[in-house]
């Protein structure tokens, strides 16, 4: 699905979180939202998900306006920074959640749900983990359960908030190329938030560089790296220090 935002503005009291942000993610694209902390990238992701709403501006899904659409109606797969797995449920119940809360005729049969859950757990390479609780899993495993849970509702887009931030360096590298491959196989539009330049350049089709509530540059990793559009982008990539932009 193609996602477009037009002139999104979001204020939190005196703090301007988004300042006229317009971006586009083409169908099947893997788009990185890159920037220092406080640059507005997570707010943008949450507005696209329907977890937050803009003060002005609009969101479009496949050319249809989705600005006021409730989160339940958007069919977005959202993977939270700390995964937000339901701690009192097993892995299987976590993954099944989105199917179990469906109303009436839409809800698959019990056997149908079980089959879908084991299919998804195979997909995220966690077969046989059905009965575990989130606290019994490693960070990388939790991440993959969160992904399976989000995919269970057959989302039209996948939104990932700092998906690899809480993992150690080795797991992070493995997981991100795996997620990239999965996204390609599923041919799903995906946006992910990161403050890690290397991560964004390595796996994204295109990168949106954000700073202080604004978009600094949008382009392919190659374009951004070789032709930085603003002094901020240049600094951000040259020094590789995520907080450079906010300290000056």
């Amino acid at each position: 699905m193609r996602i477009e935002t037009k002139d999104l503005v979001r204020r939190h009291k005196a703090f301007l979180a988004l300042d006229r942000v317009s971006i586009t993610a083409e169908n099947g694209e893997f788009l990185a939202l890159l920037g220092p902390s406080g640059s507005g990238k997570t707010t943008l992701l949450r507005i696209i998900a329907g977890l937050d709403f803009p003060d002005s501006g609009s969101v479009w899904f496949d050319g249809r306006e989705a600005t006021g659409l409730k989160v339940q109606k958007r069919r977005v797969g959202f993977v939270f920074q700390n995964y937000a797995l339901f701690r009192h449920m097993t892995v299987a119940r976590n993954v099944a959640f989105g199917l179990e809360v469906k109303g009436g005729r839409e809800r698959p049969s019990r056997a149908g749900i079980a089959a879908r859950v084991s299919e998804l757990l195979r997909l995220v390479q966690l077969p046989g983990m059905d009965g575990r609780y989130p606290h019994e899993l490693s960070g990388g495993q939790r991440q993959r359960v969160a992904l399976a849970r989000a995919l269970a509702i057959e989302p039209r887009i996948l939104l990932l908030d700092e998906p690899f931030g809480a993992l150690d360096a080795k797991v992070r590298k493995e997981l991100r190329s795996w997620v990239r491959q999965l996204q390609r196989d599923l041919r799903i539009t995906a946006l992910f938030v990161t403050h890690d330049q290397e991560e964004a350049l390595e796996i994204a089709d295109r990168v949106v560089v954000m700073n202080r509530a604004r978009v600094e540059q949008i382009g392919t990793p190659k374009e951004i790296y070789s032709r930085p559009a603003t002094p901020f982008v240049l600094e951000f990539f040259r020094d590789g220090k995520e907080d450079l932009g906010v300290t000056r």
Partner: protein
Amino acid sequence: MIDVRPPAPKAYPALRDPWPFRVALIALAVGFLGLFLLVPLIAVFSEALRKGTVAYLAAFGDPVGQAAIRLTLLVAAIAVPVNLVFGVCAAWVIARFEFRGKSLLITLIDLPFAVSPVVAGLIYILVYGANGWFGPFLQAHGIKVIFAVPGIVLATIFVTFPFVARELLPVMQSQGSEEELAALSLGASGWQTFWRVTLPKVRWGLLYGVILCNARAMGEFGAVSVVSGHIRGLTNTIPLHVEILYNEYNLVAAFAMASLLTFLAMLTLGLKAWSEWRMRTGNTHSLSGGAG
């Protein structure tokens, strides 16, 4: 799994006190607890059983005593569910939303803790009594609140209001609302999210609050004493009945009744320890889950 709890202090030898000091402190603490808590506890049962088990059990055969037990159970059966619902609502609203007057609401929830129960009882007389604000209206409609069961229930609800809300609030605040957002993004309605995610998440804290609320509801003396009117067999709860028996020098019966409340207290402590233990293990999960 990484254990996130801080190491026990004994890991630092520098913090270890010389042993005579330690022994003296422990002896002081144990002696104090024994003198002020354990001895009275033993006294309740030794007094109740002074004339043998037959006399002890006979105390429960008295219809007036039975009426007091029934009334206590009835009052708790109304007050606890009411406070359960209101407590969950209050904690939910405070933990989830930002609004004007929020700190005032928190202060109001604590009011029953700050006010003497006797004053609480007097407030109800002032409002619902024969000469109170609503007195003439209630009388005209033949509704009796003060010196009747409704007054006892109201006073008990007032006194026990904070327990559920106060127990739930820190649990809800520490757990945040990410899981709820996740549930919504997966298509769950607000109602489904509450029943399937929020409530199960806080269940041990909730149980703890309900247990404490129940213990206080059954044991409340001051506020209930003011609004009850002490009508035997009608408006006496167990604590009030104990007082009456004691004043009549019916010591065996008084302590027999008191032993019921003591059993309740011990059961409460047991359940409380258990729910605290469950809550702690639950929180360890949430901590390691959150930090990732």
